[in-house]
């Protein structure tokens, strides 16, 4: 009985204490997640097809464009920023957070659902718009550098517009056909019923819930859910891993994929652009056989395994980037 009274006093005390402090809600941007470009005018942004995108570009405007496409879907380009150093080697490097992702403007869930498979057209149009915005002359070459989901998006775009890109640098696209993507997602999860990760994630649902368009709340939960993945070797607890995830966009795109089963390899056999295909030693869901299977869809792909790192390491880990990824990319780019 004493324990019960003590607990009650603690409970009421906590509520009274909370009542004396400034009200703070989990749904307000800036509390648990940073604001997006439409909420913070100080962030670098561009407008493409009526949507505000978080974006930056480095290097001489007339140089060959290298457009970086982040993973997710729903991630952001922060972990790709080592690629800025391509500007020091004579390239124009463009980064942007895709619609509904990172620090870019959010899209209402119903709007995404109503688009159906058309959401992919919207993403291709967006990429086309980004290229058009940064391209200064018709002879300027365009290279797409996509990581994970970004590599899938780059492939779909190149298949749709085969003459619009002069080279593809791709890092561990999970798959290109939806069945392959599902297979990869399944294998890359670390969900043991008695394990810490699944239980941390599931337990969280008691503390924080949000409706379908509660972007700030769901983005925050997404971040907590993706802190580390021992299967793929990702570690988002390292400084500078991300700004903010787009949970609603990510979920909508996965749901669309399950319904529509898109094939991102369509048209890819028509492309003349050379492909540099990276995969990593420490991504246990991406063995040599999987890399051969996925890269086999491209007519001319040079496959390269990066040792000593996992899924996001080739760009995010500065040592790996400087010693392995960048030199390999420069050799590829300079030959185009």
């Amino acid at each position: 009985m004493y324990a019960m009274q003590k607990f009650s006093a603690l409970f009421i005390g906590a509520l009274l204490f909370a009542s004396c402090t400034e009200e703070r809600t989990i749904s307000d941007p800036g509390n648990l997640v940073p604001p997006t470009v439409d909420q913070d005018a100080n962030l670098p942004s561009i407008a493409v097809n009526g949507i505000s995108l978080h974006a930056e570009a480095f290097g001489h405007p007339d140089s060959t464009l290298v457009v970086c496409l982040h993973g997710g879907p729903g991630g952001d380009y922060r972990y790709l920023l080592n690629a800025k150093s391509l500007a020091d080697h004579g390239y124009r490097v463009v980064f942007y957070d895709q619609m509904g992702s990172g620090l870019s403007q959010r899209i209402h869930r119903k709007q995404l659902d109503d688009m159906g498979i058309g959401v992919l057209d919207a993403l291709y149009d967006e990429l086309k718009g980004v290229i058009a915005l940064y391209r200064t002359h018709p002879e300027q070459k365009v290279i797409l550098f996509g990581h994970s989901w970004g590599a899938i998006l780059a492939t779909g775009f190149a298949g749709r517009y085969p003459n619009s890109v002069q080279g593809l640098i791709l890092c561990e696209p999970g798959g290109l056909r939806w069945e392959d993507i599902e297979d990869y997602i399944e294998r890359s999860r670390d969900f043991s019923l008695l394990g810490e990760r699944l239980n941390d994630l599931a337990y969280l649902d008691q503390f924080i819930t949000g409706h379908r368009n509660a972007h700030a709340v769901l983005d925050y939960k997404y971040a907590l859910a993706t802190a580390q993945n021992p299967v793929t070797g990702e570690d988002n607890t390292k400084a500078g891993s991300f700004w903010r995830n787009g949970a609603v966009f990510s979920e909508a795109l996965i749901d669309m994929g399950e319904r529509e089963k898109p094939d991102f390899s369509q048209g890819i056999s028509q492309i003349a652009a050379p492909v540099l295909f990276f995969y990593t030693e420490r991504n246990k869901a991406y063995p040599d056989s999987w890399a051969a299977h996925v890269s086999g869809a491209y007519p001319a792909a040079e496959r390269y395994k990066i040792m000593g790192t996992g899924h996001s390491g080739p760009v995010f880990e500065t040592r790996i980037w400087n010693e392995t990824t960048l030199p390999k990319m420069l050799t590829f780019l300079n030959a185009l």
Partner: protein
Amino acid sequence: MKTFQYLLAALFAWVDVTVDAQTVNWSRYTPENKHFIDLHGGTEFGMAFGIAAGTHFRIGNLPLQTYVDFSMPAGNTWLDDYKVRIGGKIRWFAVEHIQFSTRFEAVFRREKNDFVRLLNFGSDMSGILGYYRGPWFAAAEVGFDKAVVTHFQHEEAYKDQFPGVRDGWYLPPTGGNFYAGFQLGATIGKQDIYLRAGRILVQDFKRSPLIPYYSQIGVNAKF
């Protein structure tokens, strides 16, 4: 006005504490065996295991059960996540073998993950309508688990991503889940064994938690 609302919430929380309980066969308690200890395990926002202890008494004609329950999910780190519930269950009516009871719990829960430590005070309320006959019972339950006020203390790993993150108490309520399911149980001697299972839905009725179902197997002993 806000302070008044919080005081009302606090008062409500006090009511929670004074009337709340476990899965129980009401018909099998006697004045000689009014205390119980309960062990349970199952899936409820993770794979969780718990222990509870409580007692039965009466207020007028209304039988009441109060208890304390401690549970924690599986995982590699001991006691980084747990939940303490202090509750009571009151049986409002019994007509023949049909009985209706309500359950109120004051909940304290903690979670620590790579990015944040969360402390939450909440409440869990449910109604149970069941058929209790002799040594066995079957009942339906509907309830709502609310995370009323939550304290966020972020790790450096998250501050490295977003230095502007604001630690502290967050209110209005940060979460809520409805649940509906069934209870089945039987009494063998001084022991009850029971099964609870059902569906969980986020309070907007459109989303589900990662594990959208709950299930619990338990055994309690009376003394």
